[in-house]
């Protein structure tokens, strides 16, 4: 959905600040898939992700006049999304249901991933979607702060420095959270493999 022909963020933000609502729609077009993915991987629920996505952009729109460009719009809106999602997940507590069931069909044909699923299940035939489900369950066992780091680094492919800026923490903390989260995930998945 991202369009390479869109004007740069700075221009779009300035135009939005000048009251051009169409410019904000372009920012939506550019960033909503990434923000949705971020929220979705932290909440594991489509309905919650949908509501939060709308709230994040509504908050960004209300606050855009205060945006002075000291960080990029990308960092700024990601920071809003992460903070709102962390607050939401903490408030929600354990009352949630996994709804991570809308895998893109391309995944089912990804040879590398199918091989990986097969090689990691020598004792039984593991369906890829089952492995996926276990991974999601394992993700949800992480604290929301660790989940945020894993989502941004492993799933969205952001560099450590960018994650540190978004979360407002040192890079070393990002690395240590990642290390701890990976160990946790490996342990959870190992338990599943042994069953």
């Amino acid at each position: 959905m991202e369009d390479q022909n869109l004007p740069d963020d700075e221009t779009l933000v300035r135009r939005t600040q000048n009251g051009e609502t169409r410019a904000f729609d372009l920012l939506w077009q550019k960033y909503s898939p990434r923000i949705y993915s971020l929220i979705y991987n932290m909440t594991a629920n489509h309905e919650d992700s949908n509501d939060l996505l709308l709230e994040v952009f509504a908050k960004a729109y209300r606050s855009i006049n205060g945006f002075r460009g000291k960080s990029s719009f990308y960092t700024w809106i990601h920071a809003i999304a992460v903070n709102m999602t962390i607050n939401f997940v903490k408030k929600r507590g354990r009352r949630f249901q996994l709804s991570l069931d809308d895998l893109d069909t391309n995944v089912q044909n990804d040879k590398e991933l199918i091989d990986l699923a097969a090689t990691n299940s020598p004792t039984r035939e593991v369906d890829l979607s089952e492995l996926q489900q276990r991974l999601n369950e394992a993700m949800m066992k992480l604290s929301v702060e660790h989940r945020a780091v894993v989502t941004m680094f492993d799933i969205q492919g952001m560099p450590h420095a960018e994650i540190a800026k978004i979360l407002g923490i040192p890079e070393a903390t990002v690395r240590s959270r990642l290390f701890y989260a990976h160990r946790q995930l490996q342990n959870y998945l190992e338990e599943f493999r042994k069953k």
Partner: protein
Amino acid sequence: MMLDDQQLQKLLRIKRFEQPPPGYFDRALIEFHRRQREELLRRSATLIWWERFVSGLGNFRVPSYAYAAVLGGFVVVATIVGSGLWAPYKETTDVSTSRAVLSGPEAQKVAVNRLALSGNLDWSTFDDSASSPKVVPVIRPSQTALPRYVLDGRPVSYKASFSF
């Protein structure tokens, strides 16, 4: 065998493909616009202005030179007041130069009070019969009293200590 980091990352990469159904973001944008309009109708203009103000305040930074300017101003005022160049509450004992707006007996009363406060009132000539009611006895300083001093918490006087 435990999953190594690379294998875990490959597994996590699967999650990149988890996307909502096609057309979702366009529909969500329409929903976003609808909520924006609804919000505008529901909230007062004052509230919207206030939210924008608070949001702008969060980004407001006091320039570093402002601290230096405030400190400099404080030093200048302190110097002027400390050196006595400007004393807005300077006490005056001269009745004739006082800026009393009262006249007649009221002005006289104020002047006498000021003299009494300054210690320059001649108590022997002071007639308080008319000005003060006889509810409480008027205490006048003793004419025979000698100066007394207190040093180191113990009374010291030219007289014997038992007179205290």
